[in-house]
Each structure stands twice: as structure tokens, then as C-alpha cells.
């Protein structure tokens, strides 16, 4: 019963998100709106973690399984990519490198900037 109730809440939020996206034309996909809604409800404690946790854990622990059908459809669309498959792979690999380095540097940059500001403030307070 608990599982079914949690599933009702989760599917319900998804359908509300879907409605906002498709009928009210919010500029975000329905599933993202559903996710943000759930996040909001959790932060405001309107929904307790225990009210969704079992079903959430089930989905999260087996998330990759749900993408198998979408991936298998590649056998139908292979004609579309076969001529550019090498280019696609290189672009994916190279841009992933790029994102790792730029993200890492940005985080480190802000951390050390924060450190400098704090040190300067401390020095000023000492005078």
C-alpha cells in the first residue's frame, strides 16, 4: 500500500508538470517541472522524505534500466548517424574533457578568490 501511495504522488507530480508544460506552455519539459515541484515540496516539508523515499530509491537504483528501449532504437536510427559516427564520438569525448577542465578551474578559481577576500578582510580587521 505504501508503495502504491508513493507511486501515486510521484506520477501525480509528473502529470502536473506535464500539464504545465504542454497545456500552460511553461518553457520547461514536464518531467523537470515535476522534479522542481517535488524539490519545492520537500524543502518546504509539505512532503516528507518518507512519503516518496521507497519508490524514489527503486527508480534511482535502477535508473539506467529505463533507458534501454531508447538506446535500442538506435538500430533504427543508425542510418542517420552512420556517416558521422566518428565525428560524433570525437566531439563527445573532446567536449567532456573541456567541461571537466573548465568546471574544475572555475570552482578552484572561486574558492581561492574567496580565500583572498577573507584574508584581506582579516588583515584589515587586525589593523
Amino acid at each position, binding site marked *: 500500500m505504501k508503495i502504491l501511495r508513493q507511486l501515486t504522488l*510521484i506520477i501525480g507530480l*509528473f502529470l502536473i*508538470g*506535464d500539464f504545465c508544460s504542454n497545456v500552460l506552455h511553461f*518553457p*520547461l*519539459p514536464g*518531467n*523537470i517541472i*515535476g*522534479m*522542481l*515541484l*517535488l*524539490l519545492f515540496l*520537500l*524543502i518546504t516539508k509539505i512532503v516528507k*522524505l518518507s512519503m516518496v*523515499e521507497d*519508490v*524514489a530509491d527503486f*527508480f*534511482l537504483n535502477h*535508473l*539506467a*534500466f*529505463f*533507458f*534501454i*528501449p*531508447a*538506446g*535500442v*532504437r*538506435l*538500430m*533504427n*536510427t543508425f542510418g*542517420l*548517424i552512420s556517416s*558521422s559516427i566518428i*565525428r*560524433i564520438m570525437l*566531439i*563527445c*569525448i*573532446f*567536449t*567532456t*574533457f*573541456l*567541461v*571537466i*577542465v*573548465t*568546471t*574544475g578551474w*572555475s*570552482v578552484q578559481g572561486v*574558492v581561492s578568490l574567496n580565500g583572498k577576500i577573507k584574508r584581506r578582510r582579516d588583515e584589515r580587521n587586525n589593523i
Partner: protein
Amino acid sequence: MNAITSNLLFGIILSLIGFEIGLFIFRKTKFPLFNPLLLGILFVIGVLKLFNIDFEDYDRGASFINLFLGPATVVLAVPLYKQLELLKSNWAAISVGIFVGSLVSVVSVILLCMLFGVEEVLTVSLIPKSVTTPIGIELSKSLGGDDSVTVMAIIISGITGAIFAPLLCKIFRIINEVAVGVAIGTASHAVGTSKALELGQTQGAMSSLSIGLAGIITVIIAPLIFKILM
């Protein structure tokens, strides 16, 4: 054969078996290239080809699995909620990092695709390549892309990050544990996060926090950048 393949459950059991085999091989080898999802997809395609089974026969049952993609995205709010605490200590650095990473991802994919003359429908499908699959599939569809290409691009990005992130961080002197975690999660979602968890607890937690945030940021900025650049 037809009696089996015409059953709606055929597509579901074939996907389940493929995924279990993928999981088994991944757990035995622990090598990122043997990604369970990738192996599962290859297994199903292999079986369909080998026994000359129509994709439509498989898809009639498998489309029921697709139905749960929406709810599976909604529950991503749960880990995000649990990890939101982590944002408090370093929120400026983390959010700047994720924003820059998502921006670089989308812009570099579009520019490189233009440079190499990749067709527009493929370019659009590659845009969400660094975000978690349920968000990526939806973003790809809303931009007019093909979700099967997107799934492939997301798997490649995940595997790339899981294999090369530690080396890249060493070469480019990314040593701060928070920076390493955010970089891996932003670039290669959950697949990379499994590697980040091996590097340390902070790296793992930061990486998984970044999955959800990078997804949200990418969904918001990608359509805008797409309009400007294409």
C-alpha cells in the same frame, strides 16, 4: 518464435535480461567501458538482429518501460534535496562551476558540430550529452533531436569522464576535492559519479549534487544558446 515475440512482455523481459547481463559484467570487471546500460542495449540489439525480430515487436512491450521515464526524473529531486545541505558551505564556487561547465558544454558542442559539418538534428541531439539521461532525453526531444542518439552521446560522455577524469585533473592541476567532484558530475553525470565516489567521499557527494543542478541549468540555458548560435 512469433508466439513469444508478439507477447507484450517479450520487450520487457529482453530488456531486463540485457540489463542484468550488463550489470553482471560491469560488477565483475569494474571497468567503465563495460557500462551496464551500453551492454544491455548491445545485447538487446544483438538478440533482435540474430533472431531477425522486428524492432516493432520489441518496442510494443518496451514502450511500457519508457512510460516510467517521467516519474524517474521527478524522483531526482530526492538526492538533490538530500545534498542541498552541501551547497551551504561552498555555494558560490559550486554554482559558478556548474554554470560555467554547462555553458561550455552546450556552446562547445554546437560550435564543434558546425565546424565538422554535423547535421542539425544530430547537433541538437548532442547538446544534452553531459546531463543525466532522463533530463537529456527530454531536452533533446524538446529541441527537435533524436533521443536514441542522445542516449548514445550521454553514455559516451559518462564513460569518457569515468576513465579520464582523474588523469585530466592531475594534468590540469585540479586538486581541490570540491572542484574535482563538481567537474566530474557536471561533465559526466551518474556514470562519472561512480568514479568520483572511488576518489573520495567529498568528490562523490559533490559529483552527485552536480548531476541534478547541471541538468536544471542546462535545460534553462540550452534553448537560449541554441537560438543565438543556430
